[in-house]
């Protein structure tokens, strides 16, 4: 099945937006200002004297001063100017970076600046390569030769025109004075290095696959699109919103609550495996440990979501519920999750099992939900759909979240696990031990093996417990399919 979009594919494709070009151009113009720009000088290249040559360190110093940044940041920015083709290196012309030393650079002529509007033309490239061929009598670099052969095949119908243009340009070039010719050749070469970069050259013009819309034009909106937008806005206006002080306060509270659990902000015990090459942290926090760590147990208390997402926490919660004889809510929630996220083929069978186990009058694990929700759900089960249990599941979840969860946190089960939880000592490896760790990194257990173990455990639990463990039965149905 293919999803079809209502938008027409106009077959034309457009290059991604380059939003930074305006700012870059403004900066480059400023840099070339006679009075306040970067100071250049004449330099001898081979036999010719080239005007307006700058050194890398002058450029970087000027930018650091202008933008009030560190030299490193200024170097990054100037590397980008080279990568976009606003400045080109005179030595080492294939590496589009700015070096913070006396390497030589020149400003590119505006004719060759990058533009949003069009790609560098293939036929222009063909003319350039043909011209190089004439001049250097077939001394193109391997990547250029490959391009040349490709273009020769692709633009064969235009080849006479291309050769003619190349010859004309070559002749015109010969008529120029030598310094001008050398400068122009450097500029043209730089332009093509940026637009058709050789392997291992990182050019900023190389920006990924084409987009479907033209960033330069506005799309015409039709009446049905307006209708949809109006419906969206109406719905958005009626949607209840919360005051910023409340919602932002909650965000700040979240950060504060989790601060000690963030490995970037507080040390994780016994140690961060990436720092010490020792994976004790991962082993202690595996899915099926007898005793979890203190931090893990603390995290369960933050929200019902944390408790249920950590399957070890969910196990502990189940122990508590078993003692209270109220495990059916969680079992129903798990079963509804399996239905929602399961395969399409297994839905009807799962829905039937859920109905028989949880919702039918006199069912073995009957859940206590309000009459209206029960009515809607049962009616929906006539034509089972993966979201048919949404209302009931939400009701049950909110019940657990607002009542059962808090009772769990106050219960002896939770207090017991808090007491027994491990508090590992921080590792203190000597440099020799660290090196040893690095040489003997543990491969751990493969997730596929863990997954297989999980499935076996689930099957065992299903066989052992009564009443029927719905979740296991449903994953069994999934596996059969």
């Amino acid at each position, binding site marked *: 099945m293919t999803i079809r979009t209502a938008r027409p594919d106009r077959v034309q494709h457009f290059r991604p937006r380059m*939003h*930074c070009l305006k700012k870059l151009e403004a900066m480059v113009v400023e840099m070339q200002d006679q009075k306040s720009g970067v100071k250049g000088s004449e330099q001898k290249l081979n036999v010719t004297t080239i005007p307006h040559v700058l050194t890398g360190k002058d450029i970087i110093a000027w930018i650091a001063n202008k933008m009030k940044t560190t030299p490193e940041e200024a170097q990054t920015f100037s590397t980008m100017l080279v990568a976009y083709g606003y400045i080109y290196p005179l030595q080492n012309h294939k590496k589009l970076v700015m070096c913070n030393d006396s390497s030589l650079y020149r400003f590119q002529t505006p004719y060759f600046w990058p533009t949003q509007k069009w790609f560098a033309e293939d036929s222009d490239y063909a003319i350039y390569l043909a011209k190089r061929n004439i001049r250097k009598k077939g001394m193109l670099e391997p990547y250029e030769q490959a391009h040349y052969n490709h273009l020769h095949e692709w633009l064969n119908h235009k080849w006479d025109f291309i050769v003619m243009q190349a010859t004309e340009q070559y002749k015109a070039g010969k008529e120029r004075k030598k310094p001008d010719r050398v400068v122009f050749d450097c500029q043209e070469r730089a332009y093509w290095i940026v637009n058709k970069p050789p392997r291992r050259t990182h050019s900023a013009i190389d920006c990924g696959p084409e987009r479907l*819309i033209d960033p330069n034009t506005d799309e015409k909106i039709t009446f049905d699109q307006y209708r*949809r937008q*109006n419906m969206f806005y109406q719905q958005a206006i009626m949607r209840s919103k919360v005051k*910023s002080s409340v919602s*932002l306060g909650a965000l700040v509270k979240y950060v504060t609550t989790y601060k000690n659990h963030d490995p970037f902000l507080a040390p994780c015990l016994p140690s961060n495996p990436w720092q010490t090459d020792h994976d004790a942290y991962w082993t202690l926090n595996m899915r099926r440990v007898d005793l979890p760590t203190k931090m893990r147990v603390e995290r369960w208390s933050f929200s019902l979501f944390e408790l249920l997402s950590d399957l070890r926490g969910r196990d502990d919660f189940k122990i508590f519920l078993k003692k209270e004889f109220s495990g059916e809510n969680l079992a129903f929630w798990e079963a509804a999750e399996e239905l929602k996220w399961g395969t399409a083929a297994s839905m009807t069978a799962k829905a039937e099992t859920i109905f028989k186990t949880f919702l039918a009058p006199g069912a073995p694990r009957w859940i206590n939900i309000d009459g209206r929700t029960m009515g809607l759900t049962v009616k929906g089960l006539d034509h089972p*759909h993966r979201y048919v249990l949404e209302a009931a599941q939400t009701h049950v979840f909110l019940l657990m979240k607002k009542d059962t969860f808090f009772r769990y946190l106050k219960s002896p089960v939770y207090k017991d696990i808090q007491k027994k939880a491990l508090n590992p000592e921080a590792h203190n490896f000597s440099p020799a031990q660290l090196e040893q760790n690095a040489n003997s*990194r543990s491969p751990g257990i493969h997730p596929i093996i863990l997954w297989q173990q999980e499935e076996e455990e689930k099957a065992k639990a299903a066989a052992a417990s009564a009443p029927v463990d719905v979740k296991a039965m449903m994953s069994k149905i999934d596996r059969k399919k």
Partner: protein
Amino acid sequence: MCDQTFVAATFGPCDSCGTASPLMNIYIKNEPINYCSFCMEVMACQGLQKGETLATLKKECESLKKKLEEDRGKLNDVELHQVAEKVEVVGALSIKTRRVLKGHTNKVLCMDWCKDKRRLVSSSQDGKVIVWDGFTLNKEHGMSMPTTWVMACAYAPSGCAVACGGLDNKCSVIPLSLDSNENCAAKKKTVAMHTNYISGCTFTNSDMQLLSCSGDGTSALWDVESGQLLQSFHGHTSDILSLDLAPSETGNTFVTGGCDKKANVWDMRSGQNIQSFECHESDINCVKYYPSGDAFASASDDATCRFFDLRADREVAVFQKDSIVFGASTVDFSLSGRLLFAGYNDYTINVWDVLKGTRISMMFGHENRVSRVRLSPDGTALCSASWDNTLRVIDIFCCFQA
């Protein structure tokens, strides 16, 4: 947590046609009604009624948009950095690259971590998808895709499969095996089929469903086993470049960002676009939820990253600096949500303090654009993938000022 979306009635009999189906909650003349997506489309496409013209619809649209902005403004009683005034400042950062993963022969476009916190999958312009054990630097699987530019890849929650897609307009799921020598690509299964390139994909809470977004402007939810389209999401007017699934207990919403400068939040059950934010000045390259699920951040070509609060329904912070001129292509949060890592097209990664809105640090090291930054599932490391053909696993440690 977005309580509102959680409790909205999204399944039941449609008010128009009566069939039991996923419902969209809309308003007709200020009355709340629940329509199935088909009836909604019929209503949108019906011919112009008496007195209705394109101009009147456009005027109505503009006045509604203005009203929404006014409502949002009324609740804007405080700024984020004001609320965070009393929070202590994050101090010096110690940043170290712990692993450099070399093996791709061209730009690395995407990566994703496995739930076991050490394995990761990466995809590249050279058409290869590689599964690595980041901890031991072992390459476990290397698979070749039929086209180049594999722009999206994702690891399944169970760790038993990976999904990938790109210029082939398809998203395929590949089951992994314990045997490194086995050719996993042979068992590849095509799940999602779009009419343009796949820009992002992710599994939902299980291995059986896949969410994909595409350059054709649509995103879709698919059943992996049968390849069936479960729900499609229309609303973007241009290429969608990124998507992220909400980490909340419901897992029912996701956010997408696209070239139309909009970030849209969708209800996965009904296909309805429930919230939309149009604040960026250029294409949105990446969207990522805040760990609590109540907010998200976006990275754009306009060189800013913005932070949107879903409950207040507005943009609450802009992470920008005059000296940052190049587009941001990727964002991710640290585990507590205090730090925001953004990868830029000028080859750097900036670390922002989410609460104070300031930049804490810059990371250099890549030799080309940073295409993806992702935090490992337990927050112990950050992986950055770049167009310089490498991936780096970076470890960061901040101290707090006394």
